[in-house]
């Protein structure tokens, strides 16, 4: 009898705690969604009860027709695609070389990359800004692509290289006997085998730039070169008080993220597993 009672108490306590945690988790989310669908003109939302102001889609209307939202979206999309493609291309090629070739200073270069990836990259941000000025990439989307790609290279090269090390070298040999050169072996043999890691790399390097704020703020100056993160934050920064517009934009940005998270879960597990602490 006693154990049954205590089990019931444990169950009730669990439900209470989980309900409170769920409420705390959901409340900000509901609050943003209700602000996004608020019928009020852009102003302060003061009622703590979601949807108490009513329901309309005017915020989205304002977002698409009265702000540069589509423009920000396009810029961010271009940067994300550029960073994704160049990261995948450069990291896989570099990892292939490190995995399959022997050359002078190889060990030193690998160690250097290991140490460089420690350095939080935006500590050297001002210097990056000067480099960007020097190569005339200020206010250019490709400048950002270069920065993101360079930031991705050290860590991801290690990640991919250790994955490539697990692909048997006999496959390369077989292809070489068939007359394939290094580039062909890389593209036709290694890349297909490394697909799970390449997908992971693609997803992380694509999603990385979406909500990055600091680099675009430093590198992009003009109005037509703004990104989503810059634009959305500008709605609520300082004197601008357009929280409802911010909320609408935040909802629009978050939905694809959540979908990608659900869809990409399996390959995320592969990649996170490889990067995670050993078991």
């Amino acid at each position: 009898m006693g154990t049954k009672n205590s089990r019931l108490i444990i169950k009730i306590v669990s439900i209470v705690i989980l309900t409170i945690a769920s409420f705390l988790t959901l409340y900000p989310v509901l609050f943003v969604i209700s602000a996004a669908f608020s019928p009020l003109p852009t102003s302060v939302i003061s009622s703590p009860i979601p949807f108490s102001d009513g329901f309309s889609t005017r915020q989205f209307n304002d977002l698409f027709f009265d702000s540069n939202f589509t423009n920000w979206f396009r810029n961010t999309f271009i940067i994300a695609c550029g960073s994704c493609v160049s990261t995948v291309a450069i990291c896989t090629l570099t990892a292939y070389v490190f995995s399959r070739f022997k050359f002078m200073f190889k060990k030193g270069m690998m160690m250097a990359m290991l140490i460089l990836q420690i350095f939080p990259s935006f500590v050297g941000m001002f210097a990056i800004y000067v480099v960007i000025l020097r190569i005339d990439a200020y206010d250019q989307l490709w400048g950002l692509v270069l920065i993101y790609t360079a930031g991705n290279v050290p860590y991801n090269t290690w990640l991919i290289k250790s994955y490539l090390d697990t692909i048997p070298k006999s496959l390369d040999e077989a292809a070489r006997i068939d007359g394939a050169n290094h580039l062909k072996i890389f593209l036709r043999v290694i890349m297909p085998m490394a697909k799970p890691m390449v997908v992971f790399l693609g997803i992380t390097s694509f999603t990385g730039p979406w909500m990055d704020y600091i680099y675009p703020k430093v590198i992009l100056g003009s109005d037509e070169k703004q990104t989503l993160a810059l634009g959305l934050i500008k709605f609520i920064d300082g004197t601008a008080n357009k929280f409802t517009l911010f909320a609408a934009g935040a909802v629009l940005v978050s939905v694809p993220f959540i979908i990608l998270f659900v869809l990409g879960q399996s390959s995320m597990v592969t990649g996170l597993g490889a990067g995670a602490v050993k078991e």
Partner: protein
Amino acid sequence: MNTSLKMDGSSKKQVLLSACIFMGLSHIIYLKQYIKGAIFALIEIIMIVNSPSLFTKIKDMIEISRWWKGISPAYFRLIDGIIALCVLAIFIVAYVVSIKSAVSSYNDFCLEGRVKSQKESMQGAVGKAFPIFGLTPAFILIVFFVIVPLLFSVVTGFTNWDEMDGHSSPGAPVNWVGFKNFADMFGGDSSWTSAFGRVAVWTVIWGAMATITCYFGGMVLATLLYEAKLKVTPVFRAILILPYAIPSILTVKVWQYMLNGSTGVINNALKDLHLISESVPWMTDKTIVKFVCIGVNMWVGIPYFMLLITGQMTAISADIYEAAEIDGANKLQVFSNITLPLVIYQTAPLIIMSFTHNINNFGAIYFLTGGDPKVTDTTSTSAGATDLLITWIYKLTMDQKRYCRGSVLAMLVFIVLAPFAIWNFKNTKSYKEGEL
């Protein structure tokens, strides 16, 4: 001149000497590898032709306080000088490579008794050229966007540079000041020293608290989800994992809005519930705001640990539980003696990883409080009550343009965190499984 080589290794001196005199020389005259030698020689010729401008750039950097009309601004001179130094370093490495290659070719010659034919050595060269071709893009990117910025930050720490453009005029030249900036941080200048101490202490407290709260929060939720075995568990899990999928910059900004002292909905809600009569100064009280930072970070960070710990719990093999049951352990004993120690053992390294992440967690602070509220020394040092070292660095360089102070802090952060980070990385699967 006799250009034939002796096989017994006695010509090593000749080969080494000629290789040292000019890149590729020994390849051409002794080893008969004309193409390879020509490429090496070409590198040296290009280098010699460009060396005057290279050395001017380095000289301009060293004599940074000199100014005349039309000279490029100090930051360009610094960056050019550093790039010139990098080019010089790369050239020296190439030189070493050429000498090593000549010696190894000679060793091959001694073993095989003949100089490799042109065709053979070219075949080898094509194979060896692939790594060069493959590494070049990554190499260039890393040099320009990682190494040069790194050196640049280090170098600025030893100057008195604290304005973007002021120093392109003769009035206030940038100059080298040695370790003055370091000395100011460590006792030389009382307001900077106290600000540095305050920020450093808060950074460590923040890093520890943010990590511990998220870890134990995640542990509690994961345990409840795992042990309670409710019908609605999947629903709870789906809700609780949600923050992990939403970009954190957005959620942090939403919390900032909700916590606003005068208009925020949280104060309104608490007033409506008659829990408080006065608004709580969530964001403006020096002490409360620190708890707010840690609390909001919990909302963002708990789901990650929950996910991870749940994964570890489900991975524990059923055999262990069965054995415990046979030994007559009750549920509580099983949990505290088996599940908990195993999970803690598996996830302990992640606690340290998360600690280093939180120390540098720019977004969690900058987007929530911006480092505010202000304290007494904020006007002179720009460090607010919740500023971490990393947000302070950002403010010093990007807002205040006090580059020299910012880079001193950046170096300190790097020196302190590097051992942690190396330790972390050495524990990852990809490091352990991959060979160097």
